């Protein structure tokens, strides 16, 4: 299988999700914080979603990491790259658990994900798909320099705005 690489940023470690993260992940998926990503969900659904996170890596060769505190390894969110079937292009996606809120964690991990997409995977461009009501995610996309390009109607998730990140060329 594609092994899941571990990345380090200033304050965070981005690593493979594992069984030790399950309770924190369930809490997030069952909370109102998961509304922006189609939730809240049941515990049983959260188990499927945890498997789905892991399964994306061998299927696509990239995926989303568990973002944890570099010192304590406490799981703080899910950030990384994903390309679901029916998606227009691969994207950078982020979710932060309640304990990770307000610390710039999503920004730090999303910036590292963008770097990984360009420097390691060799992508030229990347987007983020965001529901129009998710103002916090939109603020983060803007902070990263992304601009809203268009939107598309997803059969399951409804309207999603496509935010285009700064390209590899621009960042070089």
């Amino acid at each position, binding site marked *: *299988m594609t092994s899941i690489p571990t990345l380090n940023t200033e304050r965070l470690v981005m690593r493979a999700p594992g069984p030790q993260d399950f309770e924190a992940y369930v809490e997030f998926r069952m909370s109102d914080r998961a509304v922006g990503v189609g939730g809240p969900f049941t515990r049983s659904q959260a188990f499927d979603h945890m498997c789905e996170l892991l399964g994306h890596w061998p299927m696509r060769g990239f995926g989303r990491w568990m973002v944890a505190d570099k010192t304590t390894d406490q799981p703080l969110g899910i950030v990384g790259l994903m390309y679901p079937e029916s998606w227009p292009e691969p994207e950078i996606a982020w979710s932060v658990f309640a304990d990770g809120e307000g610390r710039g964690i999503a920004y730090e991990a999303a910036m590292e994900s963008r770097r990984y997409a360009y420097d390691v995977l060799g992508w030229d461009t990347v987007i983020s798909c965001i529901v129009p009501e998710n103002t916090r995610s939109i603020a983060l996309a803007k902070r990263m320099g992304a601009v809203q390009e268009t939107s598309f109607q997803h*059969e399951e998730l409804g309207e999603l705005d496509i935010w285009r990140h700064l390209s590899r060329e621009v960042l070089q």
Partner: protein
Amino acid sequence: MSLVPTLETENLILRAPQESDLDAMAAFMQSERSHWIGGPKNRFETWRGLLSILGHWALRGYGLWHIEEKSSGKSIGTVGILKHDGWDEPELGWHVYDGFEGKGYAFEAAFAARAYAAQKFGLDGVISHIDPTNTRSVALAKRLGATYERDGQVLGHACHNYRHPKQADL
């Protein structure tokens, strides 16, 4: 070792789920028969299910194989061992898509998966959760030598638990 081992039987290959399985799986998950396994599901949900099948291997070290018919190369169903959150033990499950029933494929696949699970995963004498109205599955469980053990519940639905014999007792 790769994440998902490949097994070969007389007529079948049991292998990792792959993106090319999505069409066959989505067609099955939109059919009436999918209600045995939590369907119907739309294509996007089915894609997510496909990833989950793969990720279950990473999380548990075992999981579901996709079954390929050797003669045609077609994806014809899934078989393997699952342990969802909260289950007290893993179960052997199977489904074969429309058009591939009645050929003994489910038996062939389940027999091979069960033997492999006992040898390589240390999961011997596993159970199967079966909806008692799913007479085909009940018949297959019996043909595999499994016997009714008790009433149970799986993901909120009543089911019967069938206990498979240990490999040494076959």
